[in-house]
């Protein structure tokens, strides 16, 4: 058995142990944490190299873990094209996030680094788990370090934000846990292997309830309108590294949860709720864009823009065709890169000026030309300019959405491309353009070497993924195809089976057959 996944997942844990026994020497602590995360990233590169573009789970490890009577939980991990890039995104973002804390966090550095590395374990574990119970453990594991990161190292209103984050997420998690247990009992004796759960044919009524429980947990994480209000607070209060990880990886837990669990486990319920989810996603896009436009705090603006971007991801996933899901997956990674970069940028100016109010800035371009260039590239990546990563994902999402039954939703969602330009460019103009009048801004220093090193990999990825996204798409395609085929077969099977007809009858009138795009089987 290949243990590379376990290795990658638990390297940060080894780092945690190492940090625990280390003296409180900040430089050493930071250096160690950075090295550990870098080792993790380098190790994860091997996954890309050895990953075969096939639909199966790879690097699988399946070991019996907890066996308590009829309960059986396995340590079952593995990745496919859907989780591969999210694992890479996590290991890629971590060193950047850690490096960004160099001067930002001076207190309790040891604990901070431990929290960050624990968080990484949780995130990686959640992405590689193929056992539903194992997934749940990692899912909860992420919550705790994040809670502390916001609650201890956060801004003025950190306790409120942390508790809000905790309660929101906890509510969803609890429902999901109940749903997991319910499926387990439905499936009969055995383990919590998700591939086993995929094949049990649940009746539409229970699918509906289970889907709702899962969807709520994931929708809070995404976050989808109207469950998004924890996000602006959490982002504004969290320290920079926390915001970066929250935006880049934690939010992806929600969308990943949909595509890995909620959708394939409950195909009928997915079909049934697609209009609702799409509606909420579209509202999220327009709503969050409009709210982002009028924000006075740069960080809040970026937080709201996250809600809009994740709305695109949801549209793509629920379009349920090759382009839509591939676009959604790409958009997850793109959002991780672009929004992560935006939070870093906000962090840079916050460290210098200790304010994030747009009105406190203006004319920074003159004073900080390198910063201005990087900021502009990231801004346009966030807007989705062709040639940057943001465009490829957004375009495929919209194309996929248009081909599916979600045409009307997609057209409304497309207006997001206008709104994103409005709020991003208006913010950029007010921060970077204009006269440099504020005397405090006239002494600002441009980015230093460390900060440039932090941004460089992100900028490179913005262009690589924008200009040559083929390797990314190629690796995820087979898994996406499998997902689509899997869901369609089951949906069709249920439609044909007379027993389940009443369940389908519950579909709102006027709802188009989903998806009406070309079947995935025809692809290529």
């Amino acid at each position, binding site marked *: 058995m290949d243990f590379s996944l376990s290795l990658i997942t638990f390297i940060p844990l080894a780092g945690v142990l190492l940090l625990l026994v280390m003296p409180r020497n900040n430089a050493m602590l930071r250096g160690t944490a950075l090295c550990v995360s870098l080792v993790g990233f380098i190790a994860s590169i091997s996954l890309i190299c050895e990953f075969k573009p096939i639909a199966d789970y790879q690097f699988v490890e399946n070991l019996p873990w907890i066996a308590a009577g009829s309960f059986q939980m396995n340590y079952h991990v593995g990745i496919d094209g859907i989780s591969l890039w999210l694992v890479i995104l996590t290991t890629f973002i971590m060193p950047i996030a850690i490096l960004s804390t160099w001067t930002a966090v001076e207190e309790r550095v040891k604990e901070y680094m431990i929290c960050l590395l624990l968080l990484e374990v949780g995130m990686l574990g959640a992405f590689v788990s193929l056992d539903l119970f194992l997934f749940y453990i990692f899912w909860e594991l992420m919550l705790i370090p994040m809670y502390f990161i916001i609650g201890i190292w956060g801004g003025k209103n950190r306790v409120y934000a942390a*508790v809000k984050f*905790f*309660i*929101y997420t906890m509510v969803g998690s609890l429902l999901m846990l109940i749903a997991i247990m319910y499926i387990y009992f439905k499936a009969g004796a055995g383990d919590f292997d998700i591939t086993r759960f995929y094949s049990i044919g649940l009746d539409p009524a229970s699918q509906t309830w289970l889907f709702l429980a899962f969807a709520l947990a994931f929708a809070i994480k995404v976050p989808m309108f109207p469950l998004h209000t924890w996000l602006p607070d959490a982002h504004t209060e969290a320290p920079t590294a926390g915001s970066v990880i929250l935006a880049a990886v934690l939010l992806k837990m929600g969308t990943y949860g949909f595509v890995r669990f909620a959708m394939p486990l409950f195909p009928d319920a997915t079909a049934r709720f697609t209009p609702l989810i799409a509606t909420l996603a579209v509202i999220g896009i327009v709503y969050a864009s*409009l709210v982002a436009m009028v924000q006075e705090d740069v960080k809040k603006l970026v937080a709201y823009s996250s809600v809009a971007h994740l709305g695109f991801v949801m549209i793509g996933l629920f379009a349920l065709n090759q382009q839509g899901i591939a676009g959604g997956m790409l958009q997850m990674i793109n959002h991780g890169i672009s929004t992560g970069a935006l939070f870093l940028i906000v962090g840079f100016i916050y460290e210098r000026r200790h304010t994030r109010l747009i009105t406190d800035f203006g004319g920074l*371009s003159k004073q900080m030309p390198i910063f201005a260039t990087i900021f502009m590239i990231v801004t346009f990546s966030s807007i989705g300019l062709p040639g940057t990563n943001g465009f490829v994902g957004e375009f495929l999402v919209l194309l996929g959405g248009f081909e599916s039954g979600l045409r009307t939703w997609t057209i409304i969602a*497309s207006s997001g491309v206008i709104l994103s*330009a409005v709020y991003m460019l208006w913010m950029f103009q007010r921060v970077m*353009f204009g*006269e440099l009048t504020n005397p405090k801004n006239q002494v600002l220093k441009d980015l230093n070497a460390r900060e440039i090193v932090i941004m460089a990999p992100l900028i490179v990825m913005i262009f690589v993924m924008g200009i040559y996204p083929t390797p990314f798409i190629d690796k995820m395609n087979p898994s996406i195809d499998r997902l689509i085929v899997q869901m369609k077969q089951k949906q069709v099977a249920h439609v044909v089976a007379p027993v389940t007809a009443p369940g389908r009858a519950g579909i709102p009138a006027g709802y188009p057959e989903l998806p009406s795009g070309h079947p995935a089987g025809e692809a290529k």
Partner: protein
Amino acid sequence: MFDNVWLIPLLPLIGFLVNGLFGKKIKNEAVIGGIGTLAIFGSFLVSCGILIQMIGTSPEHRVFEKVIFPWIHSGNFKADMAFLVDPLSVVMIMVVTGVGSLIHLYSIGYMHGEEGFYRFFAYLNLFCMSMLLLVLGNNLLVMFIGWEGVGLCSYLLIGYYFHKKSAGDAAKKAFVMNRVGDFGFLVGLFTLYWWLGSNQNIWTINFMELKQASHLLPYGGVVTVATLCFFVGATGKSAQIPLFTWLPDAMEGPTPVSALIHAATMVTAGVYMIGRMSFIFIKSPDTMMVIAVVGAATAIFAATIGTAQNDIKRVLAYSTVSQLGFMFLAMGTGAFAAGIFHLMTHAFFKACLFLGSGSVIHAMHYALHHAHSHDDAQDMRNMGGLRKAMPITFITFLVSTIAIAGIPGFSGFFSKDEILWQAFSNPYHGGLNMILWGIGAVAACFTAFYMFRLVFMTFYGDCRIQPKAKSHLHESPLVITIPLMVLGFLAAVGGYIGLPKLIGELFGGIPNYFELWLDPVFELAQEYGHTYAQVGGHHNVALEWGLMGGSVVIALVGITIAFTMYIKNTELPGKFTSTFPALHRAVYNKWYIDELYDFLFVNPCKAFGNFLWKGFDVLVVDGIVNGVAAVVKGWSGAFRYTATGYVHNYAFVMAAGTMAILGYYIFR
């Protein structure tokens, strides 16, 4: 040579990278400007090579596609980074690289001493690359990269003087309005792709494949939807009603930018796009009519505003909007070749006019600066009599003005006359033709008027510049005047490659070379058009001569009015404005369109955003959440108590929690 087409966008890209990354260190203006200019000039040479090779190829083989690398492949969606060389794209690359090279050269002189000299040249190169991608792309998505790329460069260059609020505003406005158009472009692309795919199982956005599949498209119906969406895109990029208000504001950018981007190349992208997909657009008679009507309406509307502006660049900006309207009028009447022809001649004379105005502004600025005057260097009321101080600028400017006014023998005459004739005689719009022609003719009259008003106010009459500054007025250096002379020459003679048949026959049957050249591109569209064209039309030699004479008379009338008002009897304009103050105010304030848009879109959007934020997010959603939180206040109190910051506390709590959860499930 066809194989080397990839060099054309690559050279400016290299120029952009070199100047963008190292320009700040290079510092030497000659080196930076040289790199930028040589990059685009290299593309021009390659383009010439391609043109020559294409002339040597038989017309039916003048299509060449080159795939550089695969870009986005997902399922049956395929978009490669690939180029298409055909007569239409060759015309475009010649214009872009040719005029582009001249404007780069000019910029070395014009931008001399500017703080961000390297930045300017980097952006200019980046723009050229994007524009070349736009015209060379062999599929809609590569075109779209260019389409948005030129929008980006336009944003960067309008906002070049970013410390000025007006520049920042104008840049943002341009980008956002373009984005509105891009939204249309995208939806059009989706519609076309989806319809052909799901109904005919042809999944493509490749132009040549679309052309082959175009016979499967219905007349009207879905094609109307798709083409109207694309046309929305065109109105954004090419500043047509209703998305035109960004272009006059875009004059905040340095003048070479106005010449290159906002006159000669970028703004014609919409016209090019319709030409590129003529075989689809013609399949929707309704869309064709909309294009013709919008084009004509924009032509006259912008022309009226142009008559009352005092800023020399703003007059030219409205003139550009108006001339673009003429091009759309041509596209909408199925006269695709005429539209592209006007695109080309317009690139010559309008670039020359803008560069000329730049030369004037340059001189004015210098003079006023040395006289320590704060007068506006762009306001024509501060100019006058400049022809003596700036003879080369004056002559080239005059030639271009004659060309745009439509005086026979100059390029603008041939192209504009062709458009007016096609508007009158095309077989598609029936009774509407008379109206289209009428509007076009009146707009042409206005054009002649405001252009000569500009010339008279700037170059003739008494010198209204401050006496102290007068002695500092001087002709611009060669680096500025050479491009002017080349463009002025082209503005004069550029029209002869597209002689109207009528005139060609007089001289022993010289064909309209330009139309012949583009024939293979537009042949299919004409074929489709004939299936629903009304037979007969108005083709009549005497009538054509009559209309041609008419349009000359119209131009002369415009010039005469301008002469009367601004040379002979200079009190007339004042009298006019005092007689019709409301009318003048409305025209001067651009018919209050900006204010209308603010009222209709901008302000409601902001108010709505604020309402959603403070009304819904904070009050409703958070109200509920906080209400729930208040109920479990004991909880949060406990949390606060535990947030002590001691790691062993946390570790203990975490471990205990995990154990409790695990234990619960294992032992229950």
